[in-house]
């Protein structure tokens, strides 16, 4: 599925200073019954966001109007658990394009990159600075610069660089995906398949 290209994102951010946010929280299993990719944003963080009677939980950050933006900032080990890409779809569908944390679970990170969400890994110290900046001013903006591989807290000018492999970076900058790439190397794949004992 095509996604919006990612270049420089300047936005306020939604803070979620909780560790080990797992994919069952991001999208509970009972909302995985669709056969099409649409509407997952409605159930993003469903059980943290809504009471059993579907009324919003007032103390949850997504229900607090003072926080908004296209960047989600989470505690360490964000996205642990299930391989459900639905978690990344829900984040994208809700309107978020970037998740910042000091540590990501592998599969979630890969899924995010594959659908056009940029996971930005920062140091625990820088993550703390971001949380403090948002706490001081919920409208504080972050600049995520993919070409330069840097993230800046605009209010203070504090900046850190982040890693991403060149191939994935190029994909995100241009809206490319792996499926098209793999189609272009099918001859090589055929050769490996032919030599496999299985």
């Amino acid at each position, binding site marked *: 599925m095509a996604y919006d290209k990612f270049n420089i994102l300047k936005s306020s951010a939604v803070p979620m200073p909780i560790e*080990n946010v*797992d994919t069952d929280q991001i999208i509970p299993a009972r909302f995985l*019954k669709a056969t099409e990719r649409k509407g997952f944003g409605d159930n993003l963080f469903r059980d943290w966001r809504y009471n059993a009677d579907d009324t919003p939980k007032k103390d949850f950050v997504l229900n607090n109007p003072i926080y908004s933006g296209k960047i989600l900032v989470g505690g360490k080990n964000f996205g642990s658990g299930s*391989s459900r890409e*639905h978690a990344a779809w829900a984040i994208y569908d809700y309107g978020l394009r970037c998740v910042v944390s000091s540590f990501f679970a592998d599969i979630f990170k890969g899924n995010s990159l594959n659908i056009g969400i940029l996971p930005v890994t920062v140091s625990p110290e820088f993550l703390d600075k971001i949380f403090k900046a948002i706490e001081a001013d919920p409208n504080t903006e972050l600049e995520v610069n993919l070409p330069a591989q840097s993230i800046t807290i605009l209010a203070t000018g504090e900046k850190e660089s982040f890693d991403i492999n*060149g*191939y*994935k970076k190029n994909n995100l900058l241009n809206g490319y995906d792996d499926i098209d790439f793999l*189609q272009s190397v099918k001859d090589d*794949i055929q050769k490996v398949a032919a030599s496999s004992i299985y």
Partner: protein
Amino acid sequence: MPSTLFDKVWDSHVVSHIADGPDVFFIDRHFIHEVTSPVAFLGLEQRGLKVMFPERTFATADHNTPTINQHLPVADPLSANQLKALETNAAKYGISHWGLGNPKNGIVHVVGPENGITLPGMTIVCGDSHTSTHGAFGCIAFGIGTSEVEMVLSSQCIMQPKPKKMRINVNGKLGKGILPKDVVLYIISKLTAAGATGYFVEFAGEVFENMSMEGRMTVCNMSIEMGARGGMIAPDETTFAYIKGKDKAPKGEAWDKALAYWKTLKTDADATFDLEYNFEAKDIEPMITYGTNPGMGTGITQHIPVTAETGNSKASYEKSLNYMGFHEDDALLGKKVDYVFIGSCTNGRIEDFRAFASIVKGRKKADNVTAWIVPGSHIVEQQIKDEGILDILTEAGFELRQPGCSACLAMNDDKIPAGKYAVSTSNRNFEGRQGPGARTMLASPLVAAAAAVTGVVTDPRELIA
């Protein structure tokens, strides 16, 4: 140059390496189920692509299936629709499909091995994080997202950077009543739920060498719960004996040829790992979790740790204990239990039900406990009947349900009610995992059985003759 088991399997499946990028990685076997495949098939259709090697993909319905009355139409229209989509897509693209009602049906990570689809040295993926289970056979097996399911369908490859390598050695002899589930929960409690992120793990040492295939599957299954991409164990005579004669296992000359290859699948003596841990079997007791990630586990005779001992932030730790209705320093023994679940891709194999039955035999289910006993497949269900385990269960007041993922992720009707405590042999104790508000304590089949007959968290060693 000496290499590890992981290197040998990985390197032989690399189609090409992209500079400053991932490897194009060839996949021998691809499992699909109803939940994470429909959007991938939709993608194929939109791009006008075909399935490159339909004979390398196997479909089974498990996540969303009911565990009672499977002969009736599935009542939930959304679940029924997903099951139908799997059936239609499999038929359209010529993929083997073991749907609801098929005698081969069951949980994907149970049916793969028991039918000989999973073989040593393979690369195996599935849109399910517990695909790591197949590592028990010396495979590189791991969970993938739906975009990657589409990649495998259309090109039999995914694009993956090679993970770092970790070895976890557990030596010595396990004590009475200590099961493979305890071993892996112990390891995760030591490494934390993120301790192996970025790594592929090899489990080695006497404890794994002496373990059955069922036990090895339980261990590898949960490697994802410490963040590892997967875990693997070198194949040996135990592995070969398990595979021999299985439906899709090689036969005759093909067997001899395969066996010769399988015997090369081990880590060379001088090979090195990026990280290595050593544990002793004697330090492991029956384990149970008290929090909301699988790293929050401890020995069953212990008290719940205080924040400072765990390396978690105070806020996250308190959130977790609040959800569970527990407090720091609470004793775990004697905690009330409302539900017991035995099953899942972690503990839904015949050995798990044998263990469960060994404790409930001659005892009665506790009145305050609702127990869901769910075999991992129809083959396991049949074994339970053939071995007389069903009679023991029935005598003790338990009922056997039909195969599926069931209360492990509670996508079907098998949901633990809000606020209730479940001792579960599954793999995740996340908030709401077994139903909104459900409180999960992960444990072995023996701990589950002890809870089922006493109604409280009980040390199973006290009930073993």
